[in-house]
C-alpha cells in the first residue's frame, strides 16, 4: 500500500449512496493508504472542515482531496464552493477540490475552470486512472 505525502484523507461529497459505494471501492482498489470519509451533503463536509482542527487528528484527519458532486439536494456543489470560499484559509490549506459530476452542461466545466477553488474537473464515475491523475497533478512524489 502506497502512502502519499499530504494525502491522509479523501472526502467524498455526494448525496447518492451508490455512487459513494462505488467511489469508495475505486479508492480502495488504488491501493493507497488513505482514510475515506463520506459526506452526503455539503453542510456535513463544511462542518467537518470547521471542526477538524479542534478534534483528534486520528479520527478527523485533514483531507487532501475533496471529491465534490454538483447536483445535490439543497446545497449543490456550487453552493458548497460559495460557502467554502468564506472559510478561514487555515481550514482549507493544502486541500485539493476535484469537482466530480455527471453534468453534461458545458457551462459547469467552464465555471469550474475559472473558479480558483476548484483544482480539477472530472466526470463520473471516478476511476483509478482519474484518481491517479488527480494525485499526480497535486501531490509531489518524493
Amino acid at each position: 500500500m502506497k502512502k502519499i505525502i499530504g494525502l491522509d484523507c479523501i472526502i467524498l461529497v455526494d448525496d447518492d449512496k451508490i455512487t459513494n459505494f462505488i467511489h469508495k471501492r475505486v479508492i480502495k482498489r488504488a491501493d493507497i493508504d488513505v482514510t475515506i470519509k463520506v459526506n452526503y451533503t455539503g453542510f456535513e463536509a463544511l462542518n467537518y472542515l470547521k471542526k477538524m482542527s479542534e478534534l483528534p487528528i486520528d479520527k478527523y484527519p485533514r483531507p487532501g482531496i475533496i471529491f465534490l458532486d454538483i447536483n445535490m439536494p439543497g446545497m449543490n456543489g456550487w453552493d458548497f464552493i460559495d460557502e467554502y470560499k468564506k472559510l478561514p484559509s487555515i481550514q482549507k490549506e493544502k486541500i485539493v477540490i476535484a469537482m466530480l459530476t455527471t453534468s453534461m452542461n458545458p457551462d459547469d466545466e467552464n465555471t469550474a475552470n475559472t473558479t480558483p477553488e476548484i483544482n480539477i474537473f472530472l466526470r463520473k464515475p471516478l476511476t483509478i486512472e482519474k484518481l491517479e491523475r488527480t494525485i499526480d497533478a497535486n501531490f509531489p512524489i518524493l
Partner: protein
Amino acid sequence: MSTTDTLYRHNELTFQVMVDASPNALILVNEAGKIAYANAYAEKLFQYNRAEIIGQKIEILMPARFERYHPGFVRSFFQTPQFRRMGEGRELFALKKDKTEFPVEIGLNPIVTINGNMVLASIIDITERKKAEQRFRLVVESAPSAMVLVNKKGIISLVNTQTEKLFGYRREELLGQKIEILIPSEIRSQHPKYRKEFSKNPETRAMGAGRDLFAVTRDGKKFPVEIGLNPIETFEGKMVLASVIDITERKRNEEVSKKYTKRLENKNKELEQFTYITSHDLQEPLKSITGLAEILTEDYKDQLDEEGQNSLAFLHESTERMKELISSLLHYSRLGQKSTVEEVDCNELIEVIKKDLTSSISETNTRFEITALPTVSGYKTELRLLFQNLISNAIKFRKKDNVSVIKISAKKQQQAWLFAVKDNGIGIDMKFTDKIFTIFQQLNPKEEYPGTGIGLSHCKKIVELHDGDIWVEAEPDKGSTFYFTINSKTPLL
C-alpha cells in the same frame, strides 16, 4: 290706363310681392351696374334700408378689394347673359352697412324688363356653412391618422398634417389631385372601378376587405395600409372621407410573432418527441439491466461476498430509481395533453384525495383544516394531481415531534382564485425556493425523504396550464405555505 297696361302693372306687382317675400336675399342690378331693386330679405341681410341702396353701384355691397374688377365682370355678364353661379371656384364675400364682411354664395339670373336688361342676384349667407366646414377641417386635422377627403370625381379636396407626414407630400401638392396619386402604380388603374362601386353603395366600412392594401409615398415607397371609408354629405356634394393607417410596424410584428409561434410550435413538438423517444429508448436497456440483475440475484447471490451482494442490491435500487425517473419524466411531458376543461369542485377533489391518502393520513395523525373551496374551470385530473402532490408533500415533510396540520383555503382575486396549502412541517430555507419547482431538484437527502424530485415541477406545470403562478413562503422548522393561482376564466391551451 289701358287694360294691357293694367294687366302688366298687375303682373309686375305680383312679381314684386313674390320677390319681396322670398326667403333669399334678391338684388336686381341694371346694365349700368347699379342696384335697381332689393327685397326685404336683402335689406335684412345687408342691414340697409332699400331706399339707401337703390340707385347705388352694386359694389357698395362688396369689400373694397372687389371694387376694381367687379364692374368688368358685370359688363361681361351682360354680353352673354345666362344663369350661372357667380365667381365659380373663388370665395365670395359681401359687406354689410356696418362694414362687416361675410362669406356668400351668389346665383345670377338674367332678366329682361321694360327698364332694360337686368341681372337678378340671389345671395346666400354661408357664414354658418363656413363655420361648419371649419369645424370639420379641425376635426380632420386633429385626427391621429391620415385623413383624405375625396369628392365624387376622385379629387382630393382636403387632407390633414398626418397625411402630409405619411405620404411626404405638401398639402398643396395633393389638393385638386386624383386620389390615385397615393396608390401604387400597379394597382392604380383598378382603383377608379372600386371608387365607382363604393359611390353606388356608400357605407362606412373598411376598404379592400380581405385584400392587402398598399399606398405609395411621394418618393415611390410602397407601404401596407389599413383604410376606413366614410361617406359624407357636404355642401359640395357626396364625398368620401378615408382614414389611412400605416401598418408597416404591425405587419412586421405580425410576421415576427408568426415566425416565433411557428418556431415555438416546432420546438415544443421536438421536445415532446425528444422526451418520448428518449424515455422510451432508455427503458429498453434498463429493462435488460433489470433482467440481468435478477438472474444474478436468483442464481449467483450465494456465491457472492458481502460487497458483491451489496452491489447487486444497489443495482436493483438504481434500476428501480431510473424506472421511476423515466416514468415521471414521461408523465410530466404528457400533463395537460388530451385533457378537456371542465368545472371542478375543489371540495370534492380534496375529499377524493383524502380518501386515497387515508392510510398515510391516519398513520401520521395528520389533521386538516379546510375552508369552503370554489369550483373552478380546469383540467380535473391535473388539478387533482396538483392538490395531491401538495398534500403528500405536507405529510412527507412533517415534523416528527408535533401533530401535523394542513390548512387549505382559497381567496377570490380579480382574475383568479388564490389557493393556499399551509403546513406546520420542516419548512424550507427561502434561499432554495427557486430550485424546488425545477424538475428533479430535491432539497433533502434521498435517504431521509425518498422521491424523484418531480412533484413540484408537476405542480408548476399544472398551475401554468391554468394560466396561474405558484410560489412558496416558508421558514425552516416552522412550516411552508404553498400558494398558487388558478385563472377564474377558461385556461389557456
